[in-house]
C-alpha cells in the first residue's frame, strides 16, 4: 500500500511537468521547523498538523527527518541563534515561521550560504534567498467587506476590531478592510479598537467603546480570534447582535452554530488554516527534490460559509481552529499556480 502511495506521488511529480530528476528522491534529506511561538490555539494546531503530516512522510521514507523546534520567548535573537544551530546540525532545509520579517535575515542568509533551503511561511522573512509562502491578508480584509456588502445591501455603520498594534498583519488586514469600505461606498467605520486577536482583550475593548457608538451597527469586521469576544460584549450591553465576521476559531464557530439554530443568524468566517505549516513542508520537500519553485507563493484562505458550517465545526477540535492539512499535490498546485 505504501509503495502505491509513493508511486502515486512520484507519478504526480512527473506529471506536473517538473524536473525529471524529481525521482532522485529526498529520502535522505532532513527538514527542520523553526517556530517562534506556541502560546495560542492556532500555533498548537499548526504544530499538531506538522507532527501528523511529517510523521507520515518520515515513516513513508519521503524524507529522513522533520523535526520541529520552538523558541521560548518569541524573540528575534533567540530564533536567529536557533537557526544557526540548525545549520550546524546539518539540516538540508529549514522551514521558518519568523518572529520578524527583517530581524532574521542575517541568520537566513547564513543558512542559504551554507546550502540550506529556507522556506518561510505565515511569519515570512524578506531575505531574497529564502522562499516565502505568504498570506494575502489585504485580500482577506477586503473579502470581509465584500461579503457584508452582498448581505447588507443598504450598508450602514461598522465596528472594526483590529489585531496587535504595530504588527504587519494588522496593518494589512485593516488596509484591506478600509479599501473594501471605500470601494463599496455604503459603509462607515464608526469605531475601531485593538483586540490583539484575543477573545478577552476584544471583549474588554468592545465593551468599552460600545456605549459611545450609535445603536444601528450592522456589522463587525474582525481579524480572527476576536469574534466571540465581540458577541459577548454586544450581548452584555443588551444590544442587537450585528453580523460579526468570524475567524474560524472553535468558540466562534460554535457560537455561530448556536445562533444559526436559534434565530437563523447568518455570517461568514475566514482565516488561514494552521495546517499551512504542512504546505511549507511539502514546498521544502519539492525544492530539495529539485523542482523549480518560484520564490513567492500564496496560501489559500480557509473560508467557512452558512452551508458548510456544520461540517467544519465537526472537524474542528474543541478550543482549536478550523484546519486543513495539505498534501504533496496541494503544494504542487500552489507552485504551478504561481509559476
Amino acid at each position, binding site marked *: 500500500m505504501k509503495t502505491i502511495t509513493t508511486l502515486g506521488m512520484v507519478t504526480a511529480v512527473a506529471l506536473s511537468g517538473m524536473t525529471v530528476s524529481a525521482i532522485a528522491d529526498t529520502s535522505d534529506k532532513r527538514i527542520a521547523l523553526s517556530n517562534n511561538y506556541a502560546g495560542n490555539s492556532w500555533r498548537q494546531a499548526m504544530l499538531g498538523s506538522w507532527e501528523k503530516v511529517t510523521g507520515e512522510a518520515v515513516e513513508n521514507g519521503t524524507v529522513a527527518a522533520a523535526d520541529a523546534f520552538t523558541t521560548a520567548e518569541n524573540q528575534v535573537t533567540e530564533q536567529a541563534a536557533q537557526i544557526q544551530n540548525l545549520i550546524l546540525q546539518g539540516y538540508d532545509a529549514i522551514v521558518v515561521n519568523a518572529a520578524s520579517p527583517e530581524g532574521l535575515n542575517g541568520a537566513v542568509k547564513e543558512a542559504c550560504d551554507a546550502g540550506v533551503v529556507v522556506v518561510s511561511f505565515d511569519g515570512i522573512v524578506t531575505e531574497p534567498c529564502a522562499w516565502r509562502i505568504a498570506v494575502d491578508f489585504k485580500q482577506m480584509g477586503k473579502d470581509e467587506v465584500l461579503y457584508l456588502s452582498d448581505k447588507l445591501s443598504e450598508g450602514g455603520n461598522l465596528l472594526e476590531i483590529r489585531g496587535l498594534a504595530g504588527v504587519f498583519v494588522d496593518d494589512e488586514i485593516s488596509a484591506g478592510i478600509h479599501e473594501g469600505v471605500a470601494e463599496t461606498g455604503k459603509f462607515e467605520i464608526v469605531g475601531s479598537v485593538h483586540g490583539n486577536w484575543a*477573545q478577552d482583550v476584544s471583549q474588554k475593548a468592545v*465593551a468599552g467603546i460600545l*456605549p*459611545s457608538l450609535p445603536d444601528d451597527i450592522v456589522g463587525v469586521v474582525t481579524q480572527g480570534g476576536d469574534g466571540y469576544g465581540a458577541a459577548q460584549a454586544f450581548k452584555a450591553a443588551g444590544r442587537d447582535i450585528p453580523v460579526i465576521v468570524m475567524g474560524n476559531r472553535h468558540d466562534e464557530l460554535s457560537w455561530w452554530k448556536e445562533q444559526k439554530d436559534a434565530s437563523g443568524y447568518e455570517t461568514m468566517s475566514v482565516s488561514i488554516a494552521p495546517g499551512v505549516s504542512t504546505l511549507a513542508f511539502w514546498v521544502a520537500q519539492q525544492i530539495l527534490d529539485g523542482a523549480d519553485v518560484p520564490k513567492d507563493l500564496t496560501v489559500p484562505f480557509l473560508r467557512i460559509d452558512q452551508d458548510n458550517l456544520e461540517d467544519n465545526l465537526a472537524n474542528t477540535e474543541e*478550543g482549536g481552529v478550523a484546519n486543513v492539512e495539505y498534501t504533496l499535490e496541494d503544494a504542487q498546485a500552489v507552485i504551478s499556480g504561481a509559476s
Partner: protein
Amino acid sequence: MTGVLHIFRQPWIWAWIGAVAVWLATATFTQGRGATEVLSAAMTFGAFFVIVALGQMFVITLGPGNVDLSIPACMTLAGTVAMKTMDGSAGMIPVGLLIALAIGAGVGAINYALIRMLRIPPIIATLSSSFIFQSAAIWWNRGLRVKPPEPLGDFTTAKIAGVPLIALLVMILAVAGHVLLTRTMYGRGVVAIGQNIRAAHLAGVKVERIRAATYIMCATLAGLCGYLLSAFSGGAALNMGEEYLLSSIAVVVIGGTSVAGGFANVPGLWGAALFLFLLVTMLNTFGAGAGVRLVLTGLIIIGVIVAASGGKRRT
C-alpha cells in the same frame, strides 16, 4: 480646610482624579451618551485588575526587587485547569474554585521556595517559574476553551442596580486588603520589611514567614482572577493572562504605592484600575490611532505617577 488639603497629600488621590477626568472627557465627547454604561464596564474590568493588583501590591511593598512576574501564567494555569475540571457542570463550581485557589497557592509556594531555598532574585525566580506554569497549561490543555458552568457565567456578569456584582465583591475584597495592610501585624510587617528589612528583623518581625505568606497570597489571588475571568469571558484560553503582567504592576504604581517598597495603599488600586480602563476607552472613543494612543497612555501614566509622588510620602 486642612482636611481638604490633607486629602490632596494622599498618594492615591491622583489616580482617582485621573479616572474622573478621563471619564468626564469621554462623556463630554459623546455628549453624555453611554456615560453610565462605560462606568459599569469600567467597574467590571477594573475588578479583575484589582484582584491581581492587590496581591502584587503586597509583593512590591516587600521592597526593591520584589515583584511577581508569574501572575499571567498562574492565571492561565488556574483558569484552564479549573474550566476543564468543571467541564460546564454546575455542581462542580465549588470544586473548580478550590482547584483554582489551590493551584494559585501551589504556584506561590514554588515561587517562594525558589527565592528562599535557591536564593534566586524574585524577578528571575518568578519569570522562570512562569515558563514552567505556562508550559504546564499548554501541556494540560492544548488550547482548549471549555465553557464555564452556566450559573457561574451568569454570576460573573450579574448586576445589582446597574453595578456589576463582581465589582461589589472585589470592593469587599479591597476593604479586607486595606484592613490587612493597615490594621494587622502581618500588614505592618510587610511595610516594615519594605522600609528596612534588617531593622524589621531586629524589631522582631518574622521576615521569612511574612515573605512566604505574601508570595502565596499574591499567586492565590491570581488563581482566583484566572477562575473568574475565564467564567466571565466564556472559557479559558492559553493567552488569557497576557496583559495582566504589566497592568498589575501599573495599577499598583499609578495607585500611589511606592515601587521601591515600604509604602502602600489600597484605595489607589481601584482608582488606577478604573483610570487605566477609562483611558483606553477614551482614546478609542476619540478615534485615536494605535500609535497616538500608546504614546498618550505612556505620557498620562508618567504624569499621574509624577503627580502622585510630588508630595512627601506618608505612611
